[in-house]
């Protein structure tokens, strides 16, 4: 995209019918470090690659609990993301106060999208520069949504955002059809593998990724949205690497063979 005379204001259309400021905001998302989300019928997992400003500093928080039943992972301007997380938390609390029930994930994504849309139609505002993967559990099962700065949102089986996310998307595209029936452990492993793809050669350790999960177990008990602690993440990474070293494709579920047949790729790009 080149600089042009229609990109100064978010409220200025280009002759081709585009709002350049909104598109530039989506570029900001692509600059953030990667995040990955995937879900089965009963569980949703979010994973984020941690990026620290320097070796001396702590890394950015990219995964936030929004309610017991939902959380978000973000990529882009994390300050904008923090403010939006606070908004989502307050929406969930208010809904639960009035209706005594958790805010369904689709409504949560909708509230976020409406808030983002406002910023695309006011001359004194700018779009939020952050893309959010909203994962949650409600009566109809586990859900994953992607909310982008344009105010659009879609539901996904699996998705990746941020820099080098295409590598993760390619990985997920191969396997997502089997995800509905995946166990939570399998989801976690695939999430970590997807994040590993975005690290491009760098070693995956518990200090450069964050993992969170929410879901409902087979017996009906709900596992509230929770970050998985670093020790456990490292254990999983270690066991994944050990499994890789054993010869033959023992770890791959049979669903990969079905993927190669169809060419109906999920609409991953907006």
């Amino acid at each position, binding site marked *: 995209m080149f600089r042009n005379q229609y990109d100064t204001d978010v409220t200025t259309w280009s002759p081709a019918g585009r709002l350049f400021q909104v598109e530039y905001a989506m570029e900001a998302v692509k600059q953030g470090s990667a995040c990955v989300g995937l879900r089965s019928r009963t569980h949703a997992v979010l994973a984020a690659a941690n990026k620290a400003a320097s070796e001396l500093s702590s890394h950015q928080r990219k995964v936030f*609990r929004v309610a017991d039943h939902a959380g978000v992972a973000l990529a882009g301007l994390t300050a904008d993301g923090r403010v939006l997380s*606070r908004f989502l*938390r*307050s929406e969930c*609390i*208010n809904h*639960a*106060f009035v209706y005594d029930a958790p805010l369904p994930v689709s409504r949560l994504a909708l509230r976020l999208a409406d808030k983002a849309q406002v910023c695309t139609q006011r001359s004194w505002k700018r779009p939020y520069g952050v893309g959010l993967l909203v994962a949650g559990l409600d009566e109809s099962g586990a859900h994953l949504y992607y909310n982008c700065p344009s105010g659009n949102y879609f539901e996904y089986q699996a998705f990746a955002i941020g820099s080098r996310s295409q590598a993760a998307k390619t990985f997920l595209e191969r396997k997502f059809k089997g995800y509905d029936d995946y166990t939570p452990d399998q989801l976690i492993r695939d999430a970590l593998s997807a994040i590993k793809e975005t690290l491009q050669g760098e070693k995956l350790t518990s200090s450069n990724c964050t993992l969170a999960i929410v879901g409902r177990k087979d017996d009906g008990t709900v596992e509230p949205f929770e970050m998985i602690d670093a020790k456990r993440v490292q254990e999983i990474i270690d066991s994944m690497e050990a499994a890789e070293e054993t010869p033959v494709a023992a770890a791959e579920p049979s669903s990969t063979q079905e993927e190669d047949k169809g060419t109906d790729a999920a609409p991953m790009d907006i």
Partner: protein
Amino acid sequence: MSRRGDWVYENNGGTCVAIAGADYCVVAADTRLSVGYSILTRDHSKICELADKCVLASSGFQGDIKVLHKNLAARELLYQHQHNKRMSCPAMAQLLSNTLYYKRFFPYYAFNVLGGLDSEGKGCVFTYDAVGSYERTGYSAQGTGSSLIMPVLDNQLKSPSPLLLPARDAVTPLSELEAVDLVKDVFASATERDIYTGDKLEIVVINKAGTKREYIELRKD
């Protein structure tokens, strides 16, 4: 009071008690909900667990109490999100006081007793009036049976004056079992003479292992 055309409150009765121990806290309330001389239900809890170490028991007008509890629970959730930990009992105590005083000119008709463990793990009880005046004590009773129960607790648990040296703890040296027995006894007595107290007694005990709940039958007349 209901002769006034604009009287918006009603007293649903009931009694709440809390006793603080060295490493536990007992919070108890009866489960009868009344209006006038009628019983609305024998099975209504007046106790709300606000945080893992903090329990609130309130008697008075149930409409106000329900919403007060909901409000505090929502604020606690917000606190959790912002501070990444649950609210401590003394923090909740201050929050409750502020929440009540906020409505100083249209008060919550709620008589509260907050019980739990403080940040050192010692039992604490905070007792309130309807507009938020509060004090940390070793024990308290609020509600329709409070005037029957408080003298007995004073007799059994009253700590030496805080003016005496060396300073001694306000929390009772009684064990958890002894405190629970005392609570059962005082409620049995209050049930005899207070028409609004009875049916069932709900006892919640908080200690470092967590929270335990117990139900005891009381006289139903």
